[in-house]
């Protein structure tokens, strides 16, 4: 066996590629990362990272309720975050400050409900792991029966931003320019927020409601450093998200034999740390690539 073969064997624990939960985790995690990477690019460009974060938190409310109702948390996550997106869109989103206030108020109320539901989950039902699953995700317990639902929600979320690609791009530059060109900015904005809500609900089932923003914003933020072309940012962002998720799944699988408990470390931990590392790496690489000749020219003229 070659050196590379030995290395791979050391990294990839035996059984990784034959385990059914790993298959589902790689498939679902990959799809979710793809959706988050694409929708996240628009989130970052439109300056709606805080709204995305709040929608992630709010999806926890529905996730917690779904445990009580005995349905799949995905429906709880998606249901509440889409409704919350609608409410946030209705109460003052015209101005950035109004938007942040509306977001903050809705988020506070939602998290309060989440606290109540999680308390009931933990005390009234036997599923003591529910709070952890909802807040921090549980990628290895996604049933293969969930795959069709994940696929449908993914197609809807990506479909929205694909159809609205140019109008959203234009209105991120200037709402007035978009209105003058006949873009229905109000509806486009509401639909984009709905796509963000779906994206965070999807990542809530893989890495958890609390951490879903990391997958939404992180890969997109890293991708912005690597290229100035809007289309390429989408591709980089999706690739970074998928890489972080897949490597995260692999490391979590490996960690089964790690201290302290020899119970495995949570996937979410690895995914979030990897996203952070990718972001830092992109800062370093992008610092060199992204600085085009114009900037260097300006830096020189400022220095002189």
């Amino acid at each position, binding site marked *: 066996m070659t050196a590379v073969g030995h290395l791979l064997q050391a990294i990839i624990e035996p059984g990784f590629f034959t385990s059914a939960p790993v298959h589902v985790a790689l498939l679902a995690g990959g799809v979710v990362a793809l959706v988050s990477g694409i929708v996240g690019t628009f989130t970052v460009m439109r300056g709606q990272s805080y709204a995305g974060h709040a929608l992630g938190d709010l999806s926890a409310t529905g996730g917690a309720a779904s445990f009580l109702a005995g349905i799949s948390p995905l429906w709880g996550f998606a249901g509440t975050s889409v409704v919350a997106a609608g409410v946030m869109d209705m109460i003052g989103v015209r101005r950035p400050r109004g938007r942040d206030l509306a977001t903050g108020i809705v988020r506070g109320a939602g998290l309060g409900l989440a606290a109540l539901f999680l308390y009931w989950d933990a005390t009234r039902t036997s599923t003591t792991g529910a709070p952890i699953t909802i807040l921090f995700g549980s990628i290895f317990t996604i049933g293969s029966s969930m795959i069709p639902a994940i696929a449908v929600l993914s197609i809807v979320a990506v479909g929205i931003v694909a*159809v609205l690609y140019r109008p959203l791009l234009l209105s991120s*530059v200037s709402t*007035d320019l*978009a209105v003058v060109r006949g873009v229905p900015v109000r509806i486009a904005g509401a639909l984009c927020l709905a796509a963000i809500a779906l994206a965070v609900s999807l990542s809530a089932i893989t890495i958890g409601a609390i951490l879903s923003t990391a997958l939404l914003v992180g890969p997109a933020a890293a991708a912005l450093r690597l290229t100035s*072309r*809007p289309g390429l940012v989408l591709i980089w962002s999706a690739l970074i998200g998928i890489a972080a998720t897949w490597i995260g799944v692999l490391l979590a699988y490996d960690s089964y034999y790690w201290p302290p408990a020899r119970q495995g470390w949570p996937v979410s931990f690895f995914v979030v740390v990897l996203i952070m590392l990718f972001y830092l790496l992109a800062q370093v690489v992008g610092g060199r690539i992204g600085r*085009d000749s*114009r900037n260097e020219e300006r830096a020189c003229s400022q220095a002189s």
Partner: protein
Amino acid sequence: MTMTRQPASQESAAIPDALAVDGVSVRLGGREVLQDVRFSIKPGEFVGLIGSNGAGKTTLLRVILGLLPASSGKVTVSAAGVGYVPQKIQLDPDMPLRARDLVGLGLDGQRYGIPFPSRARRKLVDEMLRAVDAEHIAVARVGNLSGGEQQRILIAHALISRPGLLLLDEPLANLDIASEQEVVALLGRIAREQRIAVLISAHEMNPLLPVMDRIVYMAHGRAASGPTDEVVTGERLSELYGHHVDVIHVHGRVLVVAGRGEGLDIPIEHSGAHADGA
């Protein structure tokens, strides 16, 4: 926006107006922001919309664009399409958008779906970038460009769809003198060569004097319009301001100065270094 065709005015029945503003008034929160504003622009005409901050220039442009309803009066746009360059846009350097992407959005930014790269589209964008002398910054991030460069890109964005009327809101604000002259020369050339009616707002008329065919001078929500030398007189502007102002010509520049000499002279509109220490 009202897009009705209007019978041409008596004086030159042959050429219809690209834009006619007919007795437009706007009340916002009980305050009369625009008061019976009327003027018209012919195709190929370059008109300066001049007035200090708060005179109502931006409000008027927003009414013409249909972004704000007029309380009374009528705006008639007969030109095929309107191009718009908004007031200073805050473009984040993090925004992944190259100059050529923003120009391209002027062509099809309102369309749905993923754009397919086409040679014809690429060629149009290249031509437009050349027309505003911006080929060398085509692939630079818009947020990293200087104020003058951003203005040129926004002008290209507004012009690529071949509008008959171009509206610009304070495109010279925050520009250094060299970029200011560049942008004015560029706009003058475009208006002449492509017979586009240009309405450009500015708080300072002097940079526009070389290219301006006519002026719409605004004060307190009211407007006086006509040939520059007929409007910019002590008599017309005193009437508009509602108090005495003097119009002084210094080295080919025009200063509008309030007051009669008793007490302090308050320069209403001044031309940079020349007016200082008056």
